[in-house]
C-alpha cells in the first residue's frame, strides 16, 4: 500500500514534469472516450425515447389503422365488398383470435369545437369505453364513458387536462360544449400525461397527446359526421383505428399473424388497413440498435487502439529516457516486479486521467447534441463506467510492454547509461 501510494505520487510527478507531452499522448484516449460516451448516450437516448413511446402505446396492443385508398383502389374495394375499417372487424377478431382479449375503436373526426379561445381547435375523437383501459388513460375528475353511453349514443364528452384549463369555467364538468352544431355535456377530465418530446424520427404510429383532446363515445360521432346529406350516405360506422389487446405481451406477435389473416379474409385482400404492432417496432428497433452498436464498437475500438498506441509510444520514450533512473532503482533494491508496477501505474494514470477528461467532454458533447440536434440523449452510469474501464484497460494493455521492457534492463548497463 505504502509502495503503491508512493508510486502514484511519483507517477503524477513525472506526468506533471512533462505536462504538454503527457497531455498530447492522452489526447487519443480523451477523444476515444469522448466519442464512445457521446455515441452511447445518443443511442441510449434514442432507445429510451422509443421505449417510452412503445410503453405508451402498450406492449400488449395491436393497432389496425384505416388506410387511405386511391380512387381506383376505392373502386376495387367496392367491388370486393370491403367497407373499410369498422367495429365489425373488431368483433371478428375477438371471435377468431383466441389471444385477443379486448378491443377498442377510435374514429378521428375533423370537427370544430366552438367557444374556445385561441385558434387551435382540439382534436376530436370518438372512442370505445374500453379505450381508456387499453391505453392506460386515467380520469382526473368525473368519469369516462360506459358501454351505455355508447349504446345510447349519449351526447357526452371527456376532455384533456390542458383543454380543460383552456376552457376555464366553461370546461367544468356538467357544462355543455358545442361541437359543430351539437351540444355535448362534459362528464370527465383526463389526468395530465407527460407529452412525449416530439421526436424527429416518426415511428409508424405516433403517440397521441391526450392533454389537448376531446373524446366522445363511439356512436355519438355519427351525429356530427352525418350533418349533411352527402356524407350521411357514406357514413357506415367506420373507424380510423382499431386497437386489440392480447392477454400477454408474449402472444402479441402470434396474435398479429392471426389478425392479419382474419383481416385479409374479411376485407377480401383489399389493403384498406394497416396492422402496426408496437412490440414488433421495438424488435425492429433493436435490430437497428445492434447494427448501430457494432459500428459504435468499431469506432470505439479504433480510437482506443490509436489512443493506446500513443500511450505505448510515450511510455517507451519515458522508459528510454529514464534508463538511468531504472538502474538506480534496481541498485537500491527495486525488483523487476517493482519496476513493472511503477511504469504500469504511470500509464494507467495517464489513460485514467484521459478517460476522466473524455467522460467530461463526452457528457458535454451529449448535452450539446441534445440541445442543438433535438435528440434525446441519456448518459447512463454504466456507459461512464464502461468508458473509464476501457481507458484503464488500454493503459494496462499498452503500458505492459514498455513496463516489462523497463524491468528487463540490465541494471549495470542502465546505471552507466548517459
Amino acid at each position, binding site marked *: 500500500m505504502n509502495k503503491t501510494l*508512493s508510486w502514484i505520487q511519483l507517477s503524477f*510527478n513525472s506526468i506533471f514534469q512533462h505536462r504538454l507531452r503527457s497531455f498530447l499522448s492522452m489526447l487519443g484516449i480523451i477523444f476515444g472516450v469522448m466519442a464512445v460516451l457521446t455515441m452511447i448516450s445518443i443511442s441510449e437516448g434514442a432507445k429510451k425515447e422509443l421505449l417510452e413511446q412503445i410503453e405508451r402505446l402498450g406492449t400488449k396492443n395491436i393497432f389496425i389503422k384505416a388506410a387511405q385508398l386511391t380512387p381506383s383502389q376505392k373502386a376495387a374495394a367496392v367491388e370486393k365488398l370491403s367497407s373499410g375499417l369498422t367495429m365489425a372487424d373488431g368483433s371478428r377478431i375477438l371471435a377468431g383470435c383466441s389471444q385477443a382479449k379486448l378491443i377498442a375503436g377510435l374514429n378521428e373526426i375533423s370537427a370544430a369545437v366552438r367557444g374556445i379561445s385561441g385558434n387551435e381547435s382540439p382534436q376530436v375523437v370518438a372512442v370505445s369505453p374500453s379505450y381508456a383501459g387499453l391505453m392506460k388513460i386515467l380520469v382526473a375528475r368525473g368519469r369516462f364513458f360506459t358501454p351505455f353511453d355508447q349504446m345510447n349514443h349519449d351526447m357526452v364528452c371527456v376532455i384533456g387536462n390542458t383543454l380543460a384549463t383552456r376552457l376555464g369555467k366553461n370546461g367544468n364538468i356538467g357544462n355543455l360544449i358545442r361541437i359543430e352544431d351539437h351540444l355535448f355535456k362534459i362528464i370527465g377530465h383526463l389526468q395530465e400525461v407527460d407529452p412525449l418530446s416530439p421526436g424527429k424520427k416518426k415511428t409508424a404510429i405516433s403517440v397521441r397527446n391526450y392533454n389537448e383532446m376531446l373524446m366522445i363515445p363511439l356512436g355519438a360521432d355519427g351525429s356530427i359526421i352525418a350533418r349533411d346529406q352527402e356524407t350521411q350516405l357514406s357514413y357506415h360506422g367506420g373507424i380510423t383505428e382499431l386497437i386489440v389487446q392480447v392477454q400477454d405481451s408474449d402472444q402479441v406477435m402470434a396474435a398479429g399473424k392471426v389478425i392479419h389473416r382474419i383481416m385479409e379474409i374479411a376485407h377480401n385482400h383489399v389493403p384498406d388497413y394497416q396492422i402496426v404492432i408496437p412490440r414488433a417496432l421495438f424488435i425492429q428497433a433493436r435490430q437497428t440498435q445492434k447494427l448501430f452498436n457494432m459500428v459504435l464498437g468499431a469506432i470505439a475500438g479504433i480510437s482506443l487502439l490509436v489512443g493506446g498506441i500513443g500511450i505505448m509510444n510515450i511510455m517507451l520514450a519515458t522508459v528510454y529516457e529514464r534508463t538511468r533512473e531504472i538502474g538506480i*532503482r534496481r541498485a537500491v*533494491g527495486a*525488483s523487476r516486479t517493482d519496476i513493472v508496477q511503477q511504469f504500469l501505474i504511470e500509464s494507467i494514470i495517464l489513460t485514467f486521467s484521459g478517460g476522466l477528461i473524455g467522460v467530461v467532454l463526452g457528457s458535454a458533447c451529449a448535452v450539446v447534441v441534445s440541445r442543438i440536434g433535438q435528440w434525446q440523449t441519456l448518459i447512463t452510469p454504466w456507459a461512464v463506467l464502461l468508458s473509464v474501464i476501457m481507458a484503464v484497460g488500454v493503459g494496462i494493455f499498452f503500458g505492459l510492454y514498455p513496463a516489462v521492457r523497463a524491468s528487463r534492463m540490465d541494471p549495470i548497463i542502465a546505471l552507466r547509461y548517459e
Partner: protein
Amino acid sequence: MPTPLIQLRGVCKSYPIHDRRVDVLTGINLVVESGTFLSIMGPSGSGKSTLLNIIGTLDRPDSGEFLFNGKNMQSASDTQLSRFRSRTIGFVFQNFNLIPGLSVLNNVKLPFLYASVSRLSAEKRALEAIESVGLAHRMDHKPSELSGGEMQRVAIARAIAIQPSIILADEPTGNLDSKTGSEILSYIKALHDQGATVIIITHDQQVADYTQQRIHLLDGRIAERL
C-alpha cells in the same frame, strides 16, 4: 571462528562482446570479514567494477560461489536479491546516480520504498542520514542545484540511510576535484570507524594506503593481496 561476511570462491564472469566472449573475472577467491575496509585497485578493464557488482548482487557469477554471511546467493531469485540489496547494501557510484526529478530528501528516501520500512521511520532515518552528511539545508533541492561534492554526499546519505551491512563505493572520488574528493573520503572513513564494512574501488594510492585490506586486480585475477 565466525562466518566471514563475504566469501567468493572461484568466481568467473565473462561477457559477450560482439561474437566473442571476453573473460572479465577468472577465478576470484576472496574473503571479507565484517568491519573490514577493503580497497580494490587495478587498471581499467581488470574487472574491478564487475567484482563489485557481483558482491552487490547486481550481477551474478557465471561459475563459482558467492556467499553472504555463509548463505549462497547463487540460487536466489531476482525479487529475493532485490530485497537483499534494499536492506543490506549501500551503493556509492562515481557518477553519483541520483534521480534528477527527485529532491535530495526523496532521493535519500528511495531505498525505503523497496525495503518495506514504515513511512515515518523512513522519513526519520533519511533526515538523520542527510544531517550526518551536513546537507540539512539542501533537503528540498534538486540534484541539479547541487555541486558535485554535495551530490556525492547525498549519494552517501542514500547509501547509509538504510543502515546497510556493507557499503560498496565504485571510485566515489573519480569525478571530484582532490579537495572535495578527500572530503568525501573522510565521510567514508568515518563510516568505517563507526563499524561499517566498506569496499571501495579506487585509483588513488593514498586512499588504498588507508584501507586495512587491499587487492590488486589484473586481467580478472587477484594479482596482489595486502
